[in-house]
């Protein structure tokens, strides 16, 4: 009797986990990918974040709350990852090689423009990149971004503005 109940509860929990993952993981991986520009790392980060958040909040009834916790955890874990420099080192290696290959050639087509911008976004300081992704991809208000990054809305505004200015300079071919 007891074992039947336990297996019933385990099955319900499993269904709930599946549902949570299907609903939230895709968006979370996209966010991590835009922050880190590496799909594999992004998936790892989201899996870690999911374990942490689902471990605590599986029984939350408000899906919006789960999403907010997951998003914040993804941003924090991405930040930790960058701080550990694992991503930065690999990224810098790749970028150095790419720069050596493409010295002197500025983007000439729309596709090249986008890839150039993508690279420039990756070269931004992490704080500016996170602020830009949360503002322009997640469409969050400055106040919401500030809440996730635990800073003031004015700081978010200035990080976005500086980041965009650096991107403009790179697109124009100026030294940032």
């Amino acid at each position, binding site marked *: 009797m007891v074992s039947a109940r336990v297996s019933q509860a385990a099955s319900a929990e499993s269904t709930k986990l599946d549902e949570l*993952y299907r609903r939230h993981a895709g968006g979370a991986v996209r966010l991590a990918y835009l922050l880190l520009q590496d799909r594999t790392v992004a998936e790892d980060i989201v899996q870690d974040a999911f374990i942490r958040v689902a471990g605590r909040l599986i029984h939350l009834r408000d899906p919006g709350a789960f999403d907010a916790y997951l998003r914040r955890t993804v941003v924090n874990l991405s930040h930790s990852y960058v701080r550990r420099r694992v991503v930065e080192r690999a990224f810098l290696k790749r970028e150095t090689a790419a720069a050596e290959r493409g010295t002197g050639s500025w983007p000439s087509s729309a596709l090249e423009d986008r890839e150039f911008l993508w690279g420039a976004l990756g070269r931004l300081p992490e704080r500016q990149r996170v602020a830009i992704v949360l503002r322009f991809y997640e469409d969050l208000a400055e106040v919401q971004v500030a809440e996730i990054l635990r800073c003031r809305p004015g700081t978010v505004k200035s990080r976005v503005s500086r980041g965009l200015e650096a991107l403009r300079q790179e697109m124009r071919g100026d030294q940032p």
Partner: protein
Amino acid sequence: MNDVDDQVRDLLREKAHDIPPNLELPRSLSTRVRRRIALNAFAVTIMVIVVAAGAFGALRGFRSQPSETAGTETCTSAHLRAITSMEGAAGSREGTIELTNTSEICALKGTPALTIFDHDQHPIVSGITFVSVAPQWQVAGTPQPPGWPVVTLAQDESASVRIRWSNWCQEDNATPRWQIAIPGSGKVDVEGIDTTNSPPCNGPDLPSTIEVGPFEPNEG
């Protein structure tokens, strides 16, 4: 070329499509999450037990201070009977308050507080000084009793507290009621009080002092 804001917005949306919107939960991840849930539940359970045990221990300690009496329950005022016996000694009165355990085995430790009352049943708080002094066994130079400062009392066994009172000059000489406070418990009315318990007046300008010793095994 559009402004970089729009370009960035478009780029991010386009790049996001590299990732499919709905991902299936990998089986290994499901196991890891379940393990985490179980771990969290375990941690919460342990925390609740620790907090509850701490609260229970604190409450018990507040009531009876069991840790200070080496595992034996501390004697409570409800199970103690106090009787004093005083006699004259060079301008003062000295003697003991004997505390008898009327219940199951328990222990006493420390120095009790003594309160004396006037005829109106008010505690006398001015003109008198209470001083903690050494136990009788130290004064007498006898070996330290086993277990002291914890005094363990089986049923009907008793402990004693040394008292020495000097210079009582208040007009109404009688102090008809005394109470002895048991650490961690309540107070016990002391029996055997009469006016002869009060010492003579040696000088109204001199302080009245009551010396109180710690609990010690009753020699008798």
